[in-house]
């Protein structure tokens, strides 16, 4: 997603195809793709979405391939943000390499994203920090609208969308959002940022069965052995010693 051009062609698109999903800030491009009417060449300057081609015949595909919630622009934003929050380095994988984008996609596309277990009756008021979350937005809407807001903020202040910025500038943009210094069009920056960060950490440190923590790399990085955990005979053996057992996840038993 990249700022002004994007908004223009989105509006144009909505005129033609209708405004479903407009409130949630869905990118026009991917919607068009999904509906089988690819945009004409040159219509989306700065976007590089080719016509999708199927994976080669016989290649093993998993249920974790592809995205069900994010559109391609959002995917590139999310990956850029993930690698800023959890940068790749020799300590362990970066956020996107660990599969956190897939994790977030599945969470936001499912019941959690729609606000399961969230009391959503009005009236809505801002309240004090002690009163907690008070927005009339389910997590999927909060994250989606916020992605558009943050990208527009990056465009306005840095002349580029988040994914096109270098690592240092991305971190600066996200810090401004985290600290409430960025003027965002719709969502309060810190609230959006905290939800995004929470999802990142859940994906990174959660069980791989949810799509993140690929190869249990985050668990290996910190030394968490996972499941099923049976330490009755190890408490004394490993008291004050590094644990040497294997790292296993729920997914390993699937």
């Amino acid at each position: 997603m990249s700022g002004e051009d994007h908004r223009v062609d989105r509006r144009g698109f909505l005129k033609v195809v209708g405004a479903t999903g407009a409130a949630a800030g869905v990118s026009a491009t991917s919607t068009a793709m999904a509906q089988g009417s690819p945009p004409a060449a040159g219509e989306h300057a700065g976007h590089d979405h080719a016509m999708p081609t199927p994976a080669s015949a016989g290649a093993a595909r998993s249920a974790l391939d592809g995205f069900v919630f994010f559109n391609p622009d959002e995917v590139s934003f999310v990956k850029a943000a993930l690698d800023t929050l959890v940068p790749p380095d020799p300590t362990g994988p970066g956020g996107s390499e660990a599969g956190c984008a897939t994790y977030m996609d599945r969470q936001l596309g499912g019941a959690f994203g729609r606000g399961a277990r969230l009391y959503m009756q009005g009236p809505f008021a801002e309240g004090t920090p002690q009163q907690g979350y008070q927005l009339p937005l389910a997590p999927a809407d909060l994250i989606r609208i916020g992605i558009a807001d943050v990208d527009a903020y990056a465009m306005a202040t840095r002349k580029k969308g988040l994914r096109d910025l270098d690592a240092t500038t991305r971190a600066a943009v996200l810090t401004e959002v985290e600290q409430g210094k960025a003027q965002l069009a719709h969502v309060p920056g810190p609230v959006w940022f905290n939800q995004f960060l929470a999802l990142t950490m859940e994906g990174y440190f959660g069980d791989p069965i949810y799509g993140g923590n690929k190869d249990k790399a985050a668990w290996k990085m910190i030394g968490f052995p996972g499941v099923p955990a049976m330490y009755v005979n190890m408490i004394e053996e490993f008291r004050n010693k590094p644990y040497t057992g294997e790292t296993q996840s729920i997914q390993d038993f699937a």
Partner: protein
Amino acid sequence: MATQLKPVDILLVGYGWTGGIIAKELASTGLKILALERGGPRDTNPDFLEPHKDDELRYAVRHDLMQDVSRETLTFRNKSSQTALPMRQLGSFLPGEGVGGAGVHWNGVTWRWTPWDQEARKQTVERYGEKIIPEGMNLQDWGIGYDELEPYYDRFEKTCGVSGKAGNLNGQKIDGGNVFEGPRKSEYPNPPLKQTQTGVMFEKAARNLGYHPFPSPAANSSQPYTNPDGVAFGQCHYCGFCERFGCEANAKASPHFTVMPIAARNPNFELRTNANVMKVLLDSTGKKATGVLYVDARGREFIQPADLVVLSAYALGNVALMLWSGIGKPYDPVTNTGVVGRNYAYQASSGATLFFDEKTYINSFMGAGALGVNIDDFNAGNYDFAKAGYIGGGGIGASTSGGRPIQSRPVPAGTPRWGLEWKKATAANYPHAAGVSNQGSNMAYRSNYLDLDPTYRDIYGRPLMRMTFDFLDNEQKQMKALADVCAAIGKEMGARKVEARTNPVPYSIVPYQSTHNTGGAVMGTDPRTSALNRYCQVWDVPNVFVTGACVFPQNAGKNPTGPVGALAYWIADALKNQYLKNPGALVRA
């Protein structure tokens, strides 16, 4: 139109720890007992099997076993001058839902409270005089002393297979146990759990500093165990997925496999799940309950008549039901009159996070819900709290209940929350971080109370309960003073970095603190200051009894379920031996 059902003798609203105990204890009467539980049925097999039960995201983060606040929640504010807003997601506390209640996903720390806790006012006034009690503090006694409750504590501990070590057997103090506890008639049913590195270091440091460490009493069975009802427990696996999770080993005592199967042996017992009680129905005098109105999963309404109603719907649920039903006079904080909603309190806790060098391995992922070492030297009644400048105290300890990585990754203060520096600090500190914590008491005040919200409603159209609560000066002092003690112990343990912390002030509904909500329908000797008499019978409506932590006039520096369980046995005895023989008020107002 509500469907009218056939009457029962005894109706339990909510089927968790206390409902289960009462159903079991009254099973021998052969009376028609009906339990209505708003949540669904569940059992160890197939619901809590490995490896799926060790799912941190599902259970600890998304709260799968807990109250669904999209349906029912409460509103919250720190003080009366603010507008309360709904608790839109769970945070500070996690009430249970479904068969077994929060008893399925608790930790199992099973205390006897100190004798002081039951006579907080009497003992404070005896020692320091009336004037030590600050303006606005409603310090009160239970109306039943420790010695009266002792046999019931004993029954609950044996039901739960508590692992621990006595510190006061019939008045004889025993080193290695809690020498500050009230005298007990018998030893714990199981020996203490094995301690981790954290426990070993804490114990040594506490001794060095002249304190009296002892293993936390744990309803996590340290060995295979059969309780007095013939219920078999497995040995604890120390899996570290305990608090917020079911137990695969039946080592953590939970009502669903202990008291409930025994209750079900009564041929006249019935459990209806997905049965949410809307309110208790009263007759035209308002002094007698005739039954309840409940709603099933499809939204159909039923009127269930009953001779006796027991509210066992958790502390908060019980108070809400009383307010919705018009049982007892609602509390008015302006005049300090009325009793329902009065003396709501919480847990004023603090502690210290400890970072050790890279040679000290904590292995926090190995643990059990109630595994730890404690000292009671700073609990109310055990030291001169007035000298420290407040009323109350706290239990201090180091526990290892599991280092699950989504929620537990301590890094030193000043570390960024994300980025490369955060990542390196996380990887470096995870194996070497531990904590010492103070579970602080919380006195009750005029300005902290529960009532009904004027604006917000649940999905059934009932007004939400409104919580007005803050940590006041007395609690802030207590939290700070005992955080310093925690930090000093942490230093003695050899941590290279020690960071003291307290619960957020002002109190915040956002971060998890504890599911130890107390008060709101307290027991006592004076109907002007208590909703219930000493048998936890409603003064105004004698065929309604109330269980749970809502009966405590103030909260202790300890987890509540020990006395909550003991009182459930006490109530069951009062029903069996007194009330059912001659229904009516057991105490004259």
